[in-house]
């Protein structure tokens, strides 16, 4: 698989490191250190994406003809590692990892030309309209309707858990266009050019961590053009399944966990064990840290095998296995973070957490992010298909018919 020599890869690493040393602004760096979610602070994330796009590095895994880098799997891993070393904010995923790849695969030429450049630059941000108050894991039961009227659809209903809908200017969504046949039939995939069409109302929802990251979006006779449809009418379910492949098969997730673990390890060297001495010298802490590090390392090993094209990539359960492993490991890392922070994690410090607030945290930076990170991480086993649904899919691959 590898076509580059060690020297070439080392030179590439040096080039990436040198660029990342200088390109981000202070606000972007601060946003990275204060990221407590899979979604980085919105404004700094977008600013950082614009800078990376100038360099041509906003979407390393896209095909080159659409603005990707053409890097090898090793180069992408190196980029990810260097990126995480500097605690830079992750780029927001909806546009780059979901709509973009979907349009590249299934969009019309017109849709590609219209949307892809603005997705790369970060000028557009797309929120995802899938779940509804009564359609979560059973997504195909969704009811938000779109009725054809001339060249338009009229949408009625609501969508929920639409991350950053209040900051997005566009939306991709699933709507019901028919009630005939199985519930998976009759669903259509739509792109909305705006999030402020007449009759659309976006309500941010405050989460456990005190931040409004997700929203509910209401549609009351909202008229949108049919040209925003991806795929045929009533065939949106297969479009959504195609997109899911991108969402679950994304790039390496382990480097960020490696980095969090390093921050935890460093913090433990400054913490006192209740049994005396430093927490980092406590044998139980050492064993638990070692076990967690082993699991993070194994996730990295798994990801490298997959990126290297190992035959297990052919297992239909693989995306679900990857999602389950990654999401549960994020949660365990977050638990370890709160364990090291201890009491210091209990103070609400939303002002200190806000980028550019100039408010000093009361304890360490790890104390500051630990509890919001832990609370936000409860979502990892719920979103993108709950882990219960993932386990159903994994088990299906094991059943002998």
């Amino acid at each position: 698989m590898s076509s580059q020599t060690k020297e070439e890869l080392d030179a590439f690493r040096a080039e990436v490191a040198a660029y990342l040393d200088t390109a981000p602004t202070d606000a972007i760096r601060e946003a990275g250190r204060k990221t407590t979610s899979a979604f980085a602070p919105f404004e700094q994330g977008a600013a950082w994406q614009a800078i990376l796009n100038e360099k041509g590095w906003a979407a390393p895994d896209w095909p080159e003809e659409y603005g990707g880098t053409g890097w090898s799997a090793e180069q992408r891993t190196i980029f990810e590692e260097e990126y995480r070393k500097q605690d830079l904010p992750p780029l927001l995923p909806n546009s780059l990892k979901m709509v973009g790849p979907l349009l590249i695969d299934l969009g019309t030429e017109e849709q590609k030309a219209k949307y892809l450049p603005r997705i790369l630059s970060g000028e557009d941000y797309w929120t995802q309209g899938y779940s509804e108050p009564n359609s979560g894991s059973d997504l195909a039961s969704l009811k938000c309707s779109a009725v054809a009227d001339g060249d338009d659809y009229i949408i009625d209903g609501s969508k929920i858990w639409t991350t950053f809908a209040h900051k997005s200017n566009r939306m991709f969504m699933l709507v019901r266009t028919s009630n005939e046949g199985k519930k998976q039939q009759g669903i259509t995939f739509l792109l909305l050019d705006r999030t402020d069409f007449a009759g659309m109302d976006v309500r941010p929802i405050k989460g456990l961590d005190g931040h409004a990251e997700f929203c509910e979006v209401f549609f009351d006779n909202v008229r949108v053009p049919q040209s925003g449809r991806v795929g045929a009418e009533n065939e949106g379910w297969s479009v959504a399944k195609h997109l899911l492949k991108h969402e679950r098969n994304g790039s390496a997730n382990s480097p960020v966990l490696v980095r969090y673990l390093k921050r935890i390890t460093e913090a433990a060297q400054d913490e006192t064990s209740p049994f005396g001495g430093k927490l980092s010298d406590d044998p139980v802490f050492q064993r638990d840290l070692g076990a967690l590090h082993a699991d993070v390392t194994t996730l990295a090993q798994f990801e490298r095998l997959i990126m290297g094209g190992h035959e297990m990539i052919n297992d239909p359960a693989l995306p679900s296995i990857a999602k389950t492993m990654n999401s549960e490991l994020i949660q365990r890392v977050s638990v370890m973070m709160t364990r090291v922070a201890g009491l210091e994690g209990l103070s609400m410090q939303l002002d200190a957490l806000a980028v550019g607030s100039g408010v000093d945290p009361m304890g360490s930076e790890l104390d500051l992010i630990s509890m919001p990170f832990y609370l936000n991480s409860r979502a990892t086993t719920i979103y993108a298909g709950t882990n219960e649904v993932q386990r159903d899919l994994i088990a299906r691959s094991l059943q002998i018919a």
Partner: protein
Amino acid sequence: MDFSQTDEQKMLQESVKRLLERSYDFETRQKMLQSGRPWSPEIWEALAEMGILGLPFAEEVGGFGGSMADVVAVAEPFGAHLLIEPYVSSILLAGQCLAQSDSPAAQAQLAKIVTGEQTAAFAHEEGKGTADPALVSLAATEAEDGFTLSGEKRMVLGATQADTLVVSARTRGTAPDADGLSLFMVDPKQQGVSIRSFVTIDGRHAAHITFDGVQIPSDRRVADDAHEVLQTVISRAIVALCAEAVGAMGALLRQTSEYASTRKQFGAPIATFQTISHRLADMKIAYVKARSCLLYTTALMDAGRAGAPDISILKGQIGTLGREIGEAAIQTHGGVGMTDEVSIGHFHKRILTINALFGDSEYHFRAVGKSLATGGA
């Protein structure tokens, strides 16, 4: 690094699988265990003929210069069939120690091991899971024309049948000094060697051995400054043992999935109940993790980049994940899983044994965490 098997490795693995499918089904193995035979000489001979015994050795000593990935390719089916032949003890531990030596006595002995004509046992363990060779304390005192060995070795696999023992001992210093370790070749019938034989939970013949003033001529010392040799040999044996465990885990996953898909209760296959299906999913996740870690660590080793923490991560993961899979398999089989008559419990006992050898998962996880927390890695 390349993680996929080469065509040669695939062929090698296929030929081992075919041999074991033909001649090493569970019932045959059960009969052998019940007969009290320590292992099957026919299988041992077949493995010799196929070049599997010589696989890890250099061509100069009659071997095939196989890589770690080659050994892993054969060790996975060994685990899936619960092979009790002394591959790890005679070939990968005792044999590889001898292969690192340029002493004529060691080379002569090695030649007989590579052909399968004789076996050797590795007398190293002293009862603490002795993952770090520096913990060895059995004394080798310099005497006229050689050394005198005094002390005890425990859990020496294949000792009762071995033609020679490869013994780690300390000529100077005290544990945990890395300095002062040597390897000796000892005839198990020699005066002063007392062997207490037993059978392990996974059907292997082993022994505790007491050395009471055993006189060893100088030319039977096959290595001094042996810490590094021991570490290398043990690390590679750990990877092979982990490959066996992964083979056993794969068999448990497959057999448990089949059982749950056919066993009916309340009018339906139990695999259709979400509690059971999620347990099966967890078994598969654990298996994918274990196998990923194994294959990656194997590639690291072949690239000369596997350090002590990498080996500890593998050993820790395999012990933990293996126990998870084994316990889930027994629970899913219900009462049947508790019997000696089905293979499930046998796989589990093999995995438990592998976990306990050369440091269990708790030990290795702490070793990894300690090294991180104190800035060692």
